[in-house]
């Protein structure tokens, strides 16, 4: 790392986040290493694999420092040119630079790209800049300075007060003020106390926690140690989904090196603090994101929640005082302690301070991870950063908050996103998934999809959640199959309210949100299914027929090529026809047609 800071040497950062890895970034990295040793490059060069840069759409990404060059969609076959031209001779490879769709110009640095311009990185500050396996990289970017500051210059209660003053609220979904939680645990006389990191990220469409654990594991560890000091805890647990194998590996490496450097173990940095962390691999249960279920799971039981009339800060893991926070929350702690609460609280809205990481996915041009100040509008996130809807289709809705969240219509796109505004709109922050839907998304089917997801993920303990979900699912399925009745809509609402009022845990209490929010904003779509036996988006197969508009069809043949069942025929440059008997209503034709010639009947 020292040498990499040398002005004469170059640092090549290869994004090895999940998205880039699947697109072949490991091969790019290995090829770079090989090429640099084999060829006679005279420039001193360091190559590092990094965590996710967030811009998964354009991966694999390769950044070259200090020139600040970002190459997109790099293949292993591009490596010789990169080494010969850019590294050796300082020439830019135009073809690998991002092309701005508006100006049509090539852009050299990712800092000049709309996707990054509006972002403000706190939780993600190191990701993509460091090798997650290297504690030296983390330390070189001020890592563990916040811990040293807390231990040497602050009392435990000053740390708690600082976190309270920052206004930080839990990033896992609930939005409970983090500092208040710490204060409650700090005030408990019982020992031992525990600190838990909730890395059981399970919202479909959210992957920010994965990215942080994989790309900057030390920030999570540092946050937890600071909390241990503040509340007087001796042991910590990081509960991670076992499916996140890279996160498990990188956290393991980070814990080991933190121990070797004296950040974990006895008398941390010469202080009285003794604290260590172990990793617990989750068993694949969405409900374990609920904190009482997660603790039951760590204890070695079935992950069923319990009533939280006594908070975990009083009686948590093994009945002891416990602070449990989500990954992104932990990642903010070192920043708050290091830079001060005031600086953190200067960002965001009145009720929600700091930034939030969102995973922007679905029908949007730039899918990926974005971190923006609280209060940024949905429109900015989806259209400015996300680049809008691909394929010239129309925006229909945006779903936030995962299965517990709701669908928000176009009329609310100027909503300033924070914990409270989303709740008001009938959705929630959740862990920060933003799923963009276009006119090819059926809102009834999407409600059914979420309820179906929860049918498998509910723990099944309490009646309103278990049986309520089943009743909702049966009713929604009937509507999607064209067997809906108008009174079904009342029944859906009735059951939804009881689930909200009477369920044991937050999963059950929010499980009906997708149903209630789609009923609130997209009732006409429900009615189209029930009254007209028609699915306007062309998704519900029983209610859909596709036809080709002979007036708009150019006979390009793209639909024929993509039809999996050979149901489309027609001469070149002549209007094509769909054979309804063969058609399986998969929608490949409508999704591939560039002329909007495929219609839903």
């Amino acid at each position, binding site marked *: 790392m020292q040498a990499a800071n040398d002005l004469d040497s170059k640092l090549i950062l290869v994004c090895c986040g999940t998205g880039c890895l699947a697109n072949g970034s490991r091969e790019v990295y290995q090829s770079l290493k090989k090429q640099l040793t084999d060829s006679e490059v005279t420039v001193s060069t360091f190559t590092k694999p990094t965590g996710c840069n967030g811009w998964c759409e354009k991966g694999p990404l390769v950044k070259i420092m200090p020139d600040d060059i970002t190459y997109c969609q790099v293949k292993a076959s591009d490596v010789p040119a990169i080494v010969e031209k850019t590294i050796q001779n300082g020439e830019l490879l135009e073809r690998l630079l991002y092309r701005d769709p508006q100006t049509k110009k090539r852009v050299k640095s990712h800092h000049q790209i709309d996707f990054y311009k509006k972002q403000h990185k706190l939780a993600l500050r190191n990701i993509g800049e460091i090798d997650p396996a290297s504690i030296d990289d983390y330390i070189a970017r001020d890592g563990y300075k916040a811990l040293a500051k807390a231990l040497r210059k602050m009392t435990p209660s000053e740390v708690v007060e600082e976190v309270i003053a920052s206004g930080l609220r839990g990033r896992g979904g609930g939005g409970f003020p983090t500092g208040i939680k710490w204060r409650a645990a700090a005030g408990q006389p019982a020992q031992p106390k525990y600190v838990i990191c909730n890395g059981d990220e399970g919202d479909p469409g959210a992957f920010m926690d994965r990215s942080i654990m994989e790309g900057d594991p030390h920030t999570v560890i540092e946050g937890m140690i600071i909390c241990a000091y503040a509340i007087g805890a001796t042991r910590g647990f990081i509960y991670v989904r076992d499916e996140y194998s890279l996160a498990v590996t990188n956290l393991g490496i980070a814990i080991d090196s933190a121990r070797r450097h004296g950040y974990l173990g006895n008398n941390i940095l010469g202080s009285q603090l003794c604290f260590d962390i172990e990793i617990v691999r989750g068993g694949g*249960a969405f*409900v374990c994101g609920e904190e009482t279920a997660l603790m039951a799971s760590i204890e070695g039981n*079935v992950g069923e929640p*319990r*009533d939280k*009339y*006594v908070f975990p800060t009083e009686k948590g893991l093994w009945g002891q005082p416990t602070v449990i926070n989500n990954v992104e929350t932990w990642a903010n702690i070192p920043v708050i302690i290091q830079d001060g609460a005031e600086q953190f609280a200067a960002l965001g809205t009145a009720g929600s301070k700091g930034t939030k990481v969102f995973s922007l996915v679905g029908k949007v041009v730039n899918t990926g991870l974005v971190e923006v100040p609280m209060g940024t509008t949905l429109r900015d996130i989806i259209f400015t950063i996300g680049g809008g809807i691909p394929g010239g289709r129309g925006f229909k809705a945006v779903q936030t908050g995962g299965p517990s969240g709701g669908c928000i219509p176009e009329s609310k796109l100027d909503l300033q996103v924070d914990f409270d505004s989303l709740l008001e709109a009938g959705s929630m922050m959740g862990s920060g998934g933003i799923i963009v839907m276009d006119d090819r998304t059926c809102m009834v089917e999407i409600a059914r999809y979420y309820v179906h997801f*929860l*049918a*498998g*993920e*509910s*723990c*099944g*303990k*309490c*009646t*309103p959640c*278990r*049986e*309520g*979900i*089943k*009743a909702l*699912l*049966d*009713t929604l399925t*009937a509507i999607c199959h064209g067997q809906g009745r108008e*009174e*079904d809509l*009342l*029944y859906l609402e*009735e*059951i939804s*309210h*009881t689930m909200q*009022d*009477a*369920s*044991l845990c937050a999963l059950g209490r929010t499980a009906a949100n997708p149903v209630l929010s789609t009923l609130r904003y997209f009732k006409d779509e429900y009615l189209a299914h029930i009254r007209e036996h028609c699915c306007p988006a062309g998704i519900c197969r029983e209610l859909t027929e596709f036809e080709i508009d002979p007036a708009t069809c150019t006979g390009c043949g793209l639909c024929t090529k993509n039809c999996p069942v050979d149901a489309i025929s027609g001469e070149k440059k002549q209007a094509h026809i769909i054979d309804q008997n063969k058609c399986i209503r998969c929608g490949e034709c409508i999704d591939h047609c560039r002329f909007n010639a495929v219609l839903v009947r």
Partner: protein
Amino acid sequence: MRIIIDEKPVEVEPGITILEAARQNGIDIPTLCYHEAFGGQGMCRMCMVEVKNGTSSRLVASCTYPISEEIEVRTSTPAIARIRRNIIGLLYRRAPNSEFMRQWYEKYEQPQSRLSPDVEESCILCRLCVKACEEMGSSAIAAVFRGTEKRIGTPYDDAATACIGCGACAQICPTGAIAMTESEDRRTIWNREFALVRCQKCGRPVGTGEQLEYIASKGGSALESGLCQVCRKKQAAVRVSEFYR
């Protein structure tokens, strides 16, 4: 500690649940998964009540809510009635085969739902059987799988190896969902057959061989000198009366 339940001030021991406090004071809160012997499970949610603490009020499960402050409790409001009605509706929808649930169902007016006519289920997943098996038997059964697939079962649905055939599960089950059949000398439960041991005097079944062994292993005795408890008491009484004669 003094709290108010349905506008009536009552004196309670701190730490007990709202449900216990209510029952001690003769106030009825309906429950399906509660049994005094096991405490609150918080599963059926029939016992939801409204708790007012200062200015804030919320709905809680009375069987798991420990009283630690001077709260005001309401056990029947329109909101609570709606919850109970829907819970009964949902459970009857799940287990239409149960006479027990049908009776509850008829007590409450119901919104229209889609009942599946072919369901032959009686179990409402109150898990009293699992609790009984834990406390009195040998934890042979458990709640298995999850979500809408959750049910009560033995490992792999096989004849329960750990089962001692005590029948506590079947006895506590409110809906008669656990099949237990008895013939002259056999009891069948959880796919397993047990030999019944009868009292040498009156011939009443005392339990299964496994059950008696289990009780003996815990230091107790259910069949001293081959007699059931009733006959043993009778015999003792005879002995005592003979002694004093």
